[in-house]
Structure formats: structure tokens, C-alpha cells
């Protein structure tokens, strides 16, 4: 453990953000990485709790107290190993995880939590910088092959895991680069893309094949993949947008946020000499009055991009009411992630957020281009009890309107239809224990659980590769099948019984309401950085 009583002497030192006026002029990471000494000091605040809630709060179950201690003692090399024992890509989560571990940290009860995420990032970056993260191709190959559709964090994680077990993995990606929403949604200010490339290259060196620019369902049918490979994993994300149903939606200059973010990320790629695709119809915020509909993180990323493009002004409309910016609301007690309103990195840079406001109509300039957004105030706290306030109508100049109110489910065309997969009540691919209704076809990530987080996507990918139970329980069942089964399993290691007895853990429809998640996303990626 760290220092006894260390938390009483050492204070939390959060992310060191760059000056907003400076960073808004580039596409670089918006904060500085901490020094080794500071990270070690911060690691010393960890109390090595008897019941480490952080470890439970992290969807990956990261061994946080263990790595905190190693960092505190300066044993970075072991820390790198420990971090990779539960997380394939600690550099991704270290950068853009909303860190539910930190809201669950015991120190969050009455103090400031350990800077777990920064430590995680520090560990990963140290691992890379010191050349400790090197290709470790599997010693033997099983001769089985797997096709993974989609190269987001879920697809990358499942590919990594399966490859380590010795299976031959090919990842099909319709975009020109791997990473899914991490590449095309998340701006470089949060996650510079060479970081994804670095990891993808490592996976390639270990034997994973990435085939970009292949749209499964168009360029190759899913059924064909099913035939050519021993197993197919769908990690296609949850990409169908929620629609804004108001008059004027068809006007020019009204777009889904994702279309804009894709273009902006491609523009940066182009500038930096990475592969990119030209847009059919360019969306730009330069010099315009921009209105962002939806107060979640996608909206924030739109603000940050619009400001970098030189928008005249950016207004964000959020239907939900403002929440206190600190403290713990009673309905999200520790160790749950608290519902609070924080000033995000994007709003630090500019832009303006209005609460309790909804868009009622979009008005054109006569030439089919959007010119004004009409809205009104609403009252209420959840999507179920929102009421319009009479006489509160307003209008805003709007030359670009970006719709960032979330995604509803994965694409039902393409592979899902090709393979005739069952869906769950919310339209996600039904795959209890990751096996879909088609034998040999698996699903994980946002495609299975609906839109969530990078950390959940990685966890999904990992579990999809080793579904079911803990080794101990699995062995029990193997024993029931007889001695031969045990010996076979022992020879292979106990991890790779992909087609194990299913336990139903298909996620349930969410019970709580989606307060503040203007686009159903909640505050992600940086919520802790404000502390």
C-alpha cells in the first residue's frame, strides 16, 4: 500500500490543462501529462482499501490499488504489467475514460479521490516510452480463425484477446482507419490519433490483420465471413442516430453531429498526412452562428471543433436543468458516479450552454439554408416530465445546426440483417454471454449494450473472448464432462472455451432516467479532470 495516512498529507493534483486560448488554436491534447514524481506522490494517497470500491467501479475491474502502490514505489515496469493484466489499452482509458473508478474511490466520500486515471495514463505512457510494451505474438497457433467486424475499442480488444489465445484474427473496418468512435468521434484534443495507430501497429505485429475500407454487408457479405471463418464477432458499435423531429430539419446546414465530427477528424488526419476521405458535402462552422442541440459529450466535441474552425459563436441547447457543480446529489450517492454539471474542456474554450431549452423549429433563409432556430423553455427533470413553459419562446441565429442527441442502436441493415440476428427490446444485438442467435456469431461492445463508453467496450471485448465463468467454475463443469475434457482444457489453458454454457447477462433496459444526458451520453471523457 501507499503511505500510511498519505491522503491526509498529500492533496489531489488533477489534470494540468493548457491555457484554453492557446489550445483552441491547435489539435493537440488539451492537458499536460504529469511528471513521474507527481504521479508517485499521488499514488501514495491510495489507502489500499480492504474493499477497493475503485476496483469494482471500473468496468474492467482494473487492479487499481495494486498499481497505485507500484507507482508509489517507483516500480513502473511491474505497474505496466499489472495494468495490462485487465486492460488491453490503458492509454485509451487513461485519456478518455470518465473514470467511474474515481467517483467510487473511498476517498471520494469526504475527500478528493486518487487520480487513478492519470496514474493509468502515466503507467501506459511509461510503458511505451521505455520500450516495455512490445509485440508478444502467441507461442502457438490453434489453427482456428475469427473475423471481427468493426475496429472500435470493442473490436480491437476482442481481436487482441483472441489473437493471444492463438487464433488467427482478421478485423474488417469500413472506415479508412481503426478505432471506431475513438478515431472519428473523439477529437484529437482528447485523444491524438497516433496513439490509436501505435496500438494498432502493435496488434498487427502480434499477428492481427486489419482490413480497412471494407464495409461488411456491401463489400463482402457477413454470411460469407461466417463461412470462411470459424467464428464471427460483430463489434459494429451503436451508430443509428436519434432524430430531431422538428420542422426545417431538411434545411441545408442542419446535420448530425457525427457527420461533422467525422469530417473534422478527417481534416486533422489530412493535415497530418494520415489516410482520410473527402466529404461529398463539406460541413463547416467557420464564421457561422452554430447551434448545437444536445448537451452531452458529443455536443461538447462539436463546440470544441467549431471554435477551432473559427465559428462566429456557438450556442448549446440542453433540455435538462442545470445541476449543482459539486457535491453529491442524494440520488447518486457514493460510490455511484455523481450527477453534476461540470464545465467541460470545450466550454472552457468558449461557447455558451443554455439549460431547459428545446428546439421547436428551424427556419430557412429562403434559399433552403438554415438561418434561425426557434425554441422554448421547458420545465422538469426527466424526459418523462418535461413541460413547455408558455410564453418562453425564443429564436437564435443559426447557420449551422448540429444534432447531438445520441444514438439509438446498431445498424439493422448490413451484417445484422445478413445474418438474421435477433435483437433485444432496445434494438441492440441480442447476445447473452456474447453469443448471438446464430451459432458461431458473437457480438460485443456498443452493438450489444447500446451506446456506452470506451472502457465498457474494452471490457466487452475481453469478456466476449472469454465468456462465462471464472476458471474455477469452468473447471468444475469440465470435470463433469470427464477426464479427457479436463486434460484437453489444461493443455490449452483454461481461458479459451469460447462456446461455454451461456449465462444470461444481456444488459437490461436502463432503469434510471437519462437526466442531463442530452444525447444519452452523460459526461464522459473528462469529467474528473475538472477536479
Amino acid at each position, binding site marked *: 500500500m501507499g503511505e500510511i495516512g498519505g491522503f491526509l498529507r498529500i492533496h489531489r493534483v488533477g489534470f494540468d490543462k493548457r491555457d484554453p486560448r492557446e489550445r483552441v488554436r491547435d489539435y493537440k491534447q488539451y492537458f499536460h501529462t504529469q511528471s513521474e514524481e507527481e504521479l508517485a506522490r499521488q499514488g501514495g494517497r491510495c489507502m489500499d482499501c480492504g474493499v*477497493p470500491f475503485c476496483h469494482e467501479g471500473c468496468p474492467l475491474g482494473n487492479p487499481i490499488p495494486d498499481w497505485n502502490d507500484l507507482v508509489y514505489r517507483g516500480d513502473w515496469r511491474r505497474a505496466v504489467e499489472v495494468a495490462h493484466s485487465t486492460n488491453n489499452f490503458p492509454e485509451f482509458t487513461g485519456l478518455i475514460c470518465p473514470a467511474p473508478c474515481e467517483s467510487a474511490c473511498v476517498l471520494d466520500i*469526504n475527500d478528493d479521490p486518487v487520480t487513478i486515471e492519470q496514474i493509468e495514463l502515466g503507467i501506459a505512457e511509461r510503458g511505451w516510452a521505455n520500450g516495455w510494451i512490445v509485440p508478444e505474438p502467441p507461442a502457438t497457433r490453434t489453427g482456428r480463425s475469427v473475423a471481427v467486424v468493426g475496429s472500435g475499442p470493442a473490436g480491437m480488444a476482442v481481436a487482441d484477446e483472441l489473437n493471444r489465445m492463438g487464433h488467427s484474427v482478421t478485423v474488417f473496418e469500413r472506415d479508412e482507419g481503426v478505432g471506431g468512435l475513438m478515431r472519428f468521434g473523439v477529437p484529437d484534443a482528447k485523444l491524438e490519433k497516433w496513439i490509436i495507430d501505435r496500438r494498432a501497429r502493435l496488434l498487427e505485429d502480434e499477428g492481427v490483420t486489419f482490413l480497412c475500407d471494407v464495409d461488411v454487408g456491401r463489400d463482402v457479405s457477413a454470411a460469407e465471413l461466417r463461412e470462411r471463418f470459424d467464428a464471427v464477432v460483430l463489434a459494429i458499435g451503436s451508430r443509428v442516430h436519434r432524430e430531431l423531429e422538428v420542422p426545417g430539419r431538411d434545411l441545408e446546414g442542419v446535420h448530425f453531429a457525427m457527420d461533422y465530427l467525422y469530417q473534422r477528424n478527417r481534416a486533422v488526419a489530412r493535415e497530418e498526412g494520415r489516410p482520410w476521405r473527402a466529404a461529398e458535402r463539406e460541413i463547416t462552422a467557420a464564421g457561422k452562428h452554430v447551434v448545437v442541440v444536445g448537451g452531452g459529450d458529443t455536443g461538447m466535441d462539436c463546440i470544441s471543433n467549431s471554435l477551432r474552425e473559427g465559428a462566429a459563436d456557438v450556442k448549446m441547447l440542453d433540455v435538462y436543468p442545470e445541476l449543482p457543480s459539486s457535491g453529491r446529489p442524494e440520488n447518486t450517492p457514493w460510490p455511484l458516479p455523481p450527477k453534476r454539471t461540470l464545465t467541460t474542456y470545450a466550454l472552457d474554450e468558449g461557447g455558451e450552454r443554455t439549460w431547459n431549452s428545446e428546439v421547436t423549429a428551424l427556419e430557412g433563409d429562403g434559399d433552403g439554408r438554415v438561418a434561425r432556430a426557434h425554441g422554448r423553455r421547458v420545465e422538469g427533470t426527466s424526459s418523462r416530465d418535461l413541460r413547455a413553459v408558455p410564453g418562453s419562446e425564443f429564436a437564435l441565429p443559426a447557420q449551422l445546426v448540429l444534432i447531438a442527441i445520441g444514438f439509438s442502436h446498431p445498424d439493422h441493415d448490413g451484417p445484422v440483417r445478413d445474418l438474421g440476428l435477433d435483437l433485444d427490446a432496445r434494438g441492440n444485438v441480442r447476445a447473452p454471454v456474447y453469443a448471438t442467435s446464430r451459432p458461431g456469431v458473437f457480438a460485443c461492445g456498443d452493438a450489444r449494450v447500446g451506446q456506452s463508453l470506451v472502457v465498457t467496450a474494452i471490457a466487452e471485448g475481453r469478456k466476449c473472448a472469454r465468456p462465462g465463468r471464472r476458471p474455477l467454475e469452468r473447471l468444475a463443469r469440465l470435470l463433469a464432462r470427464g477426464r479427457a475434457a479436463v486434460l484437453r482444457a489444461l493443455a490449452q489453458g483454461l481461458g479459451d472455451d469460447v462456446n461455454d454454457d451461456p449465462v444470461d447477462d444481456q444488459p437490461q433496459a436502463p432503469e434510471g432516467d437519462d437526466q442531463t444526458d442530452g444525447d444519452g451520453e452523460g459526461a464522459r471523457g473528462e469529467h474528473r479532470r475538472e477536479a
Partner: protein
Amino acid sequence: MVAEGINVLILSDREVGAERVAIPSLLAVAAVHHHLVREGTRLRCGLVIESGEPRETHHMATLIGYGAAAINPYLMLESLTDLRQAGMLGELSQAEAEDNVVKAIGKGLLKVLSKMGISTVQSYCGAQIFEAVGLEPELVARHFTGTASRIGGVGLDVLAREALERHARGYPRPDSDLLPVGGLYQWRRDGERRMWDPETIALLQHSVRPNGNGDGDVSQQTYDRFAHLVDEENARAGMLRGLLRLREDVRPVPLDEVQPATEIVKRFSTGGMSLGALSPEAHETLAVAMNRLGGRSNTGEGGEDEARYGDERRSAIKQVASGRFGVTINYLANADQLQIKIAQGAKPGEGGQLPGHKVDRYIARLRHSTPGVGLISPPPHHDIYSIEDLKQLIYDLRCGNPRARVSVKLVAEVGVGTVAAGVAKANADHVTIAGHDGGTGASPQSSIQSAGVPWEIGLAETQQTLLANDLRSRIIVEVDGQMRTGRDVVVAALLGADEFGFSTAPLIATGCIMMRVCHLNTCPVGIASQDPELRRRFAGTPEHVVNYLMLVAEHTRRLMAGLGVRTMEELIGRADLLEAEAAIEHWKAGGVDLTNVLTMPEVEPGAPRRRTEPPPRVLDDALDWDLIAAARPALERGEKVGLQREVHNVHRAVGGILSHEIARRHGSAGLPEGTIEVEFHGSAGQSFGAWLASGVTFTLRGEANDYTGKGLSGGVLTVLPPDGHPYLAEENVIVGNTVLYGATGGRAFFRGLAGERFAVRNSDAWAVVEGCGDHGCEYMTGGRVIVLGRTGRNFAAGMSGGIAYVLDEDEGFEGRCNLELVGFDEISADDERELRGLIAEHAQRTGSPVAERILSRWSEYLPRFVKVMPHDYKRALAELAQEAAGIAGEGEPALRE
């Protein structure tokens, strides 16, 4: 081989490899041991085990207990090399590190041995004083022959599977050489199941707090989720009660016909967690909650702040543990229940420890000790070596408070039923059976994992033995040990419990998050800390505890309705409403046989299976009633009263009830010294002058038995030989053994010799005696003892406070004194004044020629006195003096300005 004359067998698992799976070392040792015993060749050879497995005290203890004469824990030793290389051992050399570990294990073993009452490893070796929990009878009969195993359990096949499974984690070599953390001591997601995990802790906390929706149902739902998790999942995997099922084939009754929750909670208490272990804030929160509910909170060991006596913060149960810290007459007088703690679930026999850094001024005041000096509760009660002694202590406590129930807390272990029957016969009102899964984070790790048995077993045995001996109706049976849900309560009631003790769960309700750092004083939520900064962080309220226990009681009611039972009275002892759970998932549970637990002894129809009547009255013939009547003017109006009485050895604890009357009326201050003076003649029974309160002076001409002056609480006690005695008083024993045990104040003068264990655990009494037996001043933490003659061996063992002055005429004292914690000091001028004053008082009260001789040739005698001074005490006094000087110093500049 043994037949061939080989006389040392070495069992080794060094050859484990891809093809070879290690047999659990204990199984190997026990199997070979018992095989040789059966062959009749066991005595011809020694058994040595060389294994990678043993690494903890408990491992070593069991290996030795099953016959290993030597152990080579090679992997444990090699791990030290590893740790050293990783730089985790600082500057330690390999040899030093190995030395330390071996020493630590040795100490642990010593504790284990001493708690079993065994003094040499030779006699422990092969003694197998264990109870197996969860092993099948055939396996036990063959390889652990003679070990008690009451609930059956797994057999060789399962052990083999587990061995294979462990092996599979190492072969083939996994990609990473990281070992799983395991989670035995610290919870980990993939580790061992624990009683509390993040989910259950969070759900419990959420269920008792406002949830922001203003919705009472939310609490209920959250509690239900909590209870569901605990009952169905955790319990099934780890707890015996999880293997029991409530019968469903009975006619339910409507819920509204079941006794209200407000009645049920009156049967709840919180466990004895001491102030010192808990912060005052946390401790008082529990007390207030229990008082509001009509239940009972427990002081735990170590006294209670008198400021709490008058109000809601008072603990109804006052504990009397072996340390007797803060057990004054006023403490006793302010109890509803007095609990003699024989052993506690988590730490049987190990006594309690309070590290010096937790003993701040407040704690020190309550315990009548010195801030900064660590406190050890000796493992045994020095006044209980037999059930007769226990009966005496129960009697003494009854005198100290005739209105309070007297309870005995036992740990559930083999034979607890018999002990409980003894407790009932000793006239206790109440017995607590504490299961093995309780305990705080301060308990030594080896105890948390492997002491005692689950309460289900202990409780069932207790119930059955009490019924069989027709004692059940006169004693209240309480169960204590990780009660968490209404289902736990119902199962316990069905197995025979009248009352229910909760420890961890109420603390969790107030915010405890099971840090298991209670002993470090760094509890971040201010529950188990004395640090003012951390205490400020405590955010628990009595409502949290009240809400939680009400939820538990409501849950209890619902289950009662399902069982067709309307009142707790009807529920208690109905083991027939339980049955063994058929579908038990965890493979270890297969083969468990619960018949023993579920047996209901035949009793006459209508004979009660619960407590229905109080124990026999024992105080009616006490001498004190007469004293109280005669002392009425003093008690009521503070007038001086002088009495003369005969005393006989049937009169026990004389002065106890009188002192109770004083404390009840006048609190701890009592009456001014000498208000009630009684001169006795004769031979007093045990515990003469017990708890004697301030304002009472007893002078006995004659002699007194064991336990004289037990818990002396400010009174003055003198014993001198009758006039005209024909012998030399300074050569004869005048008071028995264990005199002044746990005294907290007052003065005592004995004209003659005392027996063994004089002034053990004295914390503030001043005493003069003319010689004493072995173990004088053991574990003393305060006060003064003057011995004007020879002491026995082992004087001052474990003494951490107070001062003893011993007249060392034959210069042999050094050899009789245990110098582990104490040293000999210069007698300063202040000391001299103190010493001389006390000897003068001794001379005056007893007319002792010994004292007179010393006084008359003072300068000659003074140098022969040895001042016995505990090191810690000296250090702490110096620090306190410095602090006082520092405070004065800081003030100075301000004065000058």
C-alpha cells in the same frame, strides 16, 4: 519404510511440475501421520514437511497439530528473496528477513498454543485440537482421524479438483507471471468471496440514506436488493445459514397479524466494539440509535464516558472484559446488562490490543491509563479459571448492579454448549454465542480467517444442550456474528436465539467501508480512528442505524408471516421450520450434512424452548442489605456512619451492593472519604470489598479470601490480623489470590502477605502489602503498589503503567521481576514523599511493626527500595510533561507583548 528402520520421513512437493500436481500439505501430513498411527509405527519416526504451501500461522499450526515435527516452507522463504529484489524490504538482508518471518510465525504459534492452554510445541505436535468445518466424515475418519466434523462436507474428490484447478493456473505457464492477488485479505473481483463486497456495502448504505426522490419505497427496494444478494448469493456460497432453507409447506399468516417491527428491534443489540476501536462519534451514534429503538448498544471493552450515562448516548450493555479497563462501580451501576466477555469471535484467547497511538487523552481517561501507552487485555480473566470462578464473578457483578442482567459472551467452538450450560447453572441471565465471522479490522489476520466455528453450529449445540439439561427456560440466548438480514435473524431464532447481536452491518450503515485498517488509526470515514481530523469526517447518524435495523425487522416480519408465526416467542427454537437446502451450487457444499444442526431434542410437551423465567435469586442473603439499612443516613444525607459487623466466609462480595447504592445516588464521586466506616471481624468470603465505592472504609480484623478488593472503586480497604494473633503477620498470608484485580481507584492496606496475582490490571488503586506471591502487578496500567517484603516470580510482567516500590532486602528482586516492559528507576524526592506517606498510612491503619520499623530507620531503608517503572509509561509521562511545558512556552511571547 518405517518398518525398515527409517526414522525421519520427509514429505516434499518440490517436484511439482507440468505433470505433477501437489497434494495439499496438510492432507499429506495428516494422512501419513494417521497411517503410521494405525500401523503402530508412528513413534518410531519423525515427520518433516517440505512444501511451497505453508505461509501463515494457521498453516503452521495445523501442520504441527497434525504431526509435523518440522516444516520447510521453502516458497515462503524464496518469496522473501523476490520481495527483496523488488526492493520491498528496504535494507533487510535475506537472513534478517527470514529471521523476522520465522519470529513472527513463532509468536503467532505461541498465541495459538497459549490460547489452547498448551505450553510446549512437543505437546501441541499431533494434538490436533481443531474442528473441521466442511469435510466429509469418511475423509476425516481416514486422514484426520478423531477430528470433530459436525456438518460433513467435501471429500477427497473435491480436494483433488481444487488441487488440479490451482495447478492449472500455473501449467502451462500463463502469458503473464503476475499472480492473482487472491483477495483473501483484500477484496478482489475474482478473488475469494467475502462477507462484504462493494455491492452489498453500497446497497446497505443507500438503503438507509435519503435517496433524493422522497420515496420511502426506494429504501425498501434497495434493502431488498441488498438482502437478496446477501441471502441468496453470498450466503449460499460461504455461510452455513445459506445451506438452510425456510420451510414453505406451512400455512402463512397475514402480515398485519405479525408482531410489529418496533417489538422485534427490542431484541437487537450492537456488538461490543470498544471506544478506542471506534471513534467516540461512531460509538455514540450506535448507542443513540439503539436507545431510540429500545435495543441495546454495548460499551465494548474499555469503559464509557460518564458524561453519557444520563442521556441517549448511554450504552445499555456494559462489557467486563479481561482487561477490566474502566470497570468502576459507577460503570456497573449504570448498566442494564453486564457482559462478561470470555472470548470474542474474532480473537479467541488472543486478548485485545489497543496500540499506543490510539490511546489519546480521552481514551486514557476512560480506561484509567496513560495517553500514548499501548494497552493489552490479558487473554484470560484472572478471576476465572473454572466455572466456579465464573459463578463468583457473576455474583460479584450482580452485587455491583442487582438490577442489571448478567451475561456471558462465549465464542462458538467445540463444546460451547456445555460451557453455556455451565453459564446457566452459574446463574447468568444471558449468554451470547459469538460466531467466527465477526470481528473488526483490528483483529489479527490469522484470527479473521480461522478461529472458531460459525454461530449456526455453536447456537444449535447450545440450544440442544440447554434443552437436554432443562436449563433453557432460565437463560436468554443471544447470537452474535455477522447478522445482516431478516433472514439471518429468523434462522438464528429458529435455531434457538432469543436475541440478536449486530456488529459490522450497523457500522456499515453509518459509513464503514470495511477498510480493515482499524488498527492503523487512519480510517478515512472516521469510524475506527481517534485522529481528530479523521473523526471530523464521520458522517453517520443514528437514523442510519435505526433505518437499517427497522428494515431488518420488517424483513423478519415478512418471513415470520411466511412461516405462519406471529410472534418471536413462537419462533424461537423451531428448528423444524428449517430444512437443508437441496440445490447447493458450490461444490464444496456438496456432502454437507446438517442433521446435527437441525436436531430438536425431545422435550416434554409444552416445555419452553426459549427463556421464560429469570434465574434463581442469589442476593437475598447478602450481608449488604443490612449494611445498606444501617447506612441509610449516610446514603441519603451524607451523615457519617460507623458500624461493626461479624463476617463469615459465606458472605461474598461484601460491600458490592452498598457501593452500588452509593454510585446510583452519587455517581463516581461517591461520598466523602470516611462517610461510612465499617469494622468487620472474622473471615470474609470471596471478593470482600469488591467495587468498594468512594466514601466507604472497610477495616477487617481477621482474614480475607481470594479476589479481595476486586475492582476497588475509590473506597479504602484494610485487612489486618485479629487482635492477639499468635503468629508473625508479615510471614502469613492474610488475603488470598488475585487481590485488587482490575482496581480503578481507592487505597488498600494489607498487614501480611497476599497470594498470587496481586494487583493484576490495577489501574489506579494505591496499595501496601507486606509481601506477595507470583505474578504481582501483572498487566498493571496505573496506580501504586508498595511491597514491604518478598515478591514471587514474574513480578510486573506486562506492566505498562503505574509504579511499584519493592523493598528488596535480600537483593534478589531483580531475579523475580519480569524486566520485559519495566526497568528500575531512581527514587526522586517526589517519589520519596509519596512512598513514605503511604507507608505511614499503612502503619497508622494496621499498626504494622514492619512499617514502623521502616519509618523509624528511613534513611537506612530508603536505598533498599526498588522503583519499578514501565518503560512506556516513563516515555509517555515525559512526553506529557514536555507537551505541558510546550503549551506554556508558546504562551510566553504573547504575554511579553
